[in-house]
């Protein structure tokens, strides 16, 4: 067996080393290859059978409003193609950025460099290790193809995608994906072999977090704007242009704004984009080959750097004074362990991007002429979603990382008289201490983003703090019940989903409790909104917006009802939080016992 294949096989086994994933080792490659075949066949078939029906229905609907249109003939035959570019840009971003994130992430998750001694002491060449790494990352390709093509389903429903078009799209996505994997493998290996210290690892982890968030923002921006000419150099936009060309057989995009049609050239056009993408692919492999010759594993050694901490800073001293002992000592110890890792802080701070996204989105809606059709209601619903997500994710950026690599110390803590209880409460205290300042900043940013809709900053702050408290307690309880000690593990995802659902239920219940006093408003608003939908545009939108605006701002005047709703929701949050912590403590005490 060639050496690179042995490395790839070993990496593959490591990748699927979990209790459940282990069973998939044989069948997974078959499943993934079958998936690609299914995608290649399904997309044109779906397109052929569904797009016609949808188009006919759309034409019939258009016919009803024809008299209102300035150019009835054009209205029937011209289709808005901007959706292809938007969805194509998302596909392209996923195809290019996810492989980079995943490949670097895999390198970071691997055990410390010293544990590679066994591999490095064998007669292996660096090129074998790198090719092995590249090969194992290829497992991502079918997944990327699947995810990227799912994004193209709306395109397949709007345009008839031929088999040739699908082949061109899949080729573009494959090229972007392979380039991403290769660049990531070469870059991370090169960095590790040059400076394999914890600092590089921390910096890469921080970079990974930032890249992840940037991808989120990038996708959002690209999905909202059409062919930004100043971003022509982005490979994700090349993929978008290729997809546009494949779907529409044209390099001109049509944007429909109200009853007006704008014709814009796609920049760069489809074939130029394909040439650029193929060139990038070839160049990256050539550059990689050059870098390969410079990679040398023999110089790798873990450098020990003694860090001396002479005096405790004000932050920790303040916590010691404000909490009762021994909780204060345990909390301070936990906090030090967490905050002295750069990557932990970087990851935690990256949550701030949620309100920033909403803020940027609201600004885009104000200034982008193509966004006149978007309503304030859609901004409010999207912002609300991000608001809840940020509140849940914030503690999840801390709690899972408290448990990583701490299984052995858990035994030491379990040995002490009230150790487990103290640990759980210190985790709660630690997370709240870190989350409160962040919540304040986030609440204010969300308020600024949603300022045009209305609202009180105090309410934003109160709701954000309440949500963070509840989700922190739930997440602490969930992780205490089901601790996950490895950085990589399905358990993290399961715990996240449980926390998200539990917090979501509490927040929904809170919302209902707070909204109950508004029900009279809702009862009036609903038929009004329904009636408004029968009105011609843009009157329909304007009336709906006005009703929604009234609904949001016309709060009940009876303060007793308002206070009762708030108190009831607060009590609900407290009960859920307490129950979760209690259950988590009990479960952790019994863990593996």
């Amino acid at each position, binding site marked *: 067996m060639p050496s690179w294949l042995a490395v790839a096989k070993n990496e593959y086994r490591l990748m699927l080393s979990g209790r459940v994933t282990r069973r998939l080792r044989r069948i997974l490659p078959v499943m993934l290859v079958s998936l690609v075949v299914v995608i290649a066949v399904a997309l044109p078939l779906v397109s052929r059978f569904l797009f016609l029906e949808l188009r006919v229905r759309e034409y019939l609907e258009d016919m009803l409003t024809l008299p209102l249109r300035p150019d009835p003939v054009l209205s029937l035959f011209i289709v808005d193609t901007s959706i292809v570019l938007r969805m194509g840009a998302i596909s392209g971003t996923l195809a290019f950025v996810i492989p980079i994130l995943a490949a670097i992430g895999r390198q970071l998750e691997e055990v410390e460099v010293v544990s590679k001694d066994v591999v490095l002491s064998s007669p292996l060449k660096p090129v074998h290790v790198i090719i092995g790494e590249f090969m194992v990352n290829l497992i991502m390709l079918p997944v990327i193809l699947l995810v990227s093509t799912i994004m193209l389903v709306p395109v397949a429903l709007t345009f008839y995608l031929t088999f040739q078009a699908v082949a061109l799209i899949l080729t573009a996505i494959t090229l972007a994906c392979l380039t991403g994997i290769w660049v990531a493998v070469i870059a991370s290996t090169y960095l590790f072999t040059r400076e394999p210290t914890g600092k590089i690892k921390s910096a890469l982890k921080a970079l990974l977090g930032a890249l992840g968030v940037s991808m989120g923002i990038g996708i959002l921006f690209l999905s909202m704007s059409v062919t930004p000419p100043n971003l022509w150099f982005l490979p994700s936009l090349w993929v978008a242009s290729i997809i546009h060309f494949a779907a529409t057989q044209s390099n001109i995009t049509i944007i429909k704004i109200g009853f007006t049609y704008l014709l814009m050239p796609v920049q760069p056009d489809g074939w130029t984009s394909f040439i650029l993408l193929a060139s990038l692919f070839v160049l990256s492999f050539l550059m990689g080959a050059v870098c390969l010759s410079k990679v040398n594993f023999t110089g790798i050694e873990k450098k*020990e750097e*003694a860090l001396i901490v002479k005096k405790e800073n004000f932050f920790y001293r303040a916590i010691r004074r404000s909490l009762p002992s021994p909780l204060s000592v345990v909390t301070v110890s936990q906090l030090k362990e967490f905050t*002295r890792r750069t990557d932990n802080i970087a990851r935690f701070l990256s949550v701030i991007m949620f309100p920033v996204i909403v803020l940027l989105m609201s600004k885009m809606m104000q200034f982008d002429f193509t966004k006149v059709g978007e309503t304030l209601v859609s901004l409010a619903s999207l912002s609300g979603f991000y608001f809840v997500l940020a509140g849940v994710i914030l503690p999840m950026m801390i709690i899972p990382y408290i448990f990583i690599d701490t299984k*052995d110390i858990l*035994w030491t803590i379990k040995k002490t008289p009230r150790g487990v209880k103290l640990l759980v409460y210190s985790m709660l205290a630690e997370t709240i201490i870190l989350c409160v300042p962040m919540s304040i900043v986030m609440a204010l940013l969300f308020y600024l983003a949603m300022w045009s809709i209305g609202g009180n900053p105090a309410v934003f702050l109160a709701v954000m703090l309440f949500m963070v408290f509840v989700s922190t307690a739930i997440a602490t309880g969930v992780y205490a019940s089901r601790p996950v000690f490895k950085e990589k593990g399905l358990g993290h995802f399961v715990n996240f989903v449980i926390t998200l659902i539990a917090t979501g239920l509490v927040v929904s219940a809170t919302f209902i409790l707070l909204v109950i006093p508004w029900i009279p408003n809702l009862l009036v608003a609903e038929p009004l909104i329904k009636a408004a939908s029968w009105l011609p545009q843009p009157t329909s939108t304007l009336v709906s917006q006005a009703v929604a605006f009234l609904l949001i701002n016309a709060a009940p005047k009876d303060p007793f009802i308002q206070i009762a709703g708030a108190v009831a929701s607060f009590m609900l949050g407290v009960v859920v939080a307490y129950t979760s912590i209690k259950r988590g403590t009990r479960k952790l005490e019994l863990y593996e016992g």
Partner: protein
Amino acid sequence: MEAIKTVSLTKIYGSNVGVENLNLEVFSGETFGFLGPNGSGKTTTVRLLNCIIRPTSGRAKVGGYDILSESEKVKRITGLLPETPGIYERLTAHEFLEFIGSLYDVPQPILKRRINDLLDFFELGDRGDELLEGFSKGMKQKVLLASALIHDPEIVFLDEPTSGLDPVSSRMVKDLIKMLSSETNKTFFICTHILPLAEEVCERIGIIDRGQLKEVGSPEELKEKYGAKNLEEVFLQVTGKNVTKDMIEWV
């Protein structure tokens, strides 16, 4: 008086037997060595006696307290050096010992004095403010040993206490055990593979294999019983472990 007494103590993990019908007595002030091959049930016994895990059946008393109904009292009077070194790498040695001491409610002024004394004793006094991530395996072992003693326990469980220590530090640990045993009447329960250590410091020895206690007695008694020159021969005879010629041939 017995410091530790177990009656038919059993722990079963799914289909695997951790410890089966363990009947053992360790006397107050005694240094007891618990020997056994890898996976024989030593660590499970230690975890059971420290109330970290619960027995499947059977009973045990540590320091006169029941491990099931009086677990908090048991935990207060025992100290444990675990087999796998669990440590917060981003804390300094000083901070880590303060953390463990506070879990046992040691008052702050006493805790500070003890931390300094223990760090000095283990020759880590000048490195107390360094993050533990920079410590060698042996140095971490010393910090963990200190953490097992920080609350001045009556009964000390040491799971592989000299693992990773250099000969000087290893000698220091042996002397510490001997000194504490003779001068403070502390009971030591030592799990180890290192038979000379057991022979040197332990008054009595128990040999466990596949979860079952095979032998108990003083090193001299056991050597006499098995007609062996040293404890190693006793251990091999009790556990039946021998290197076969077949294996040597291809190696």
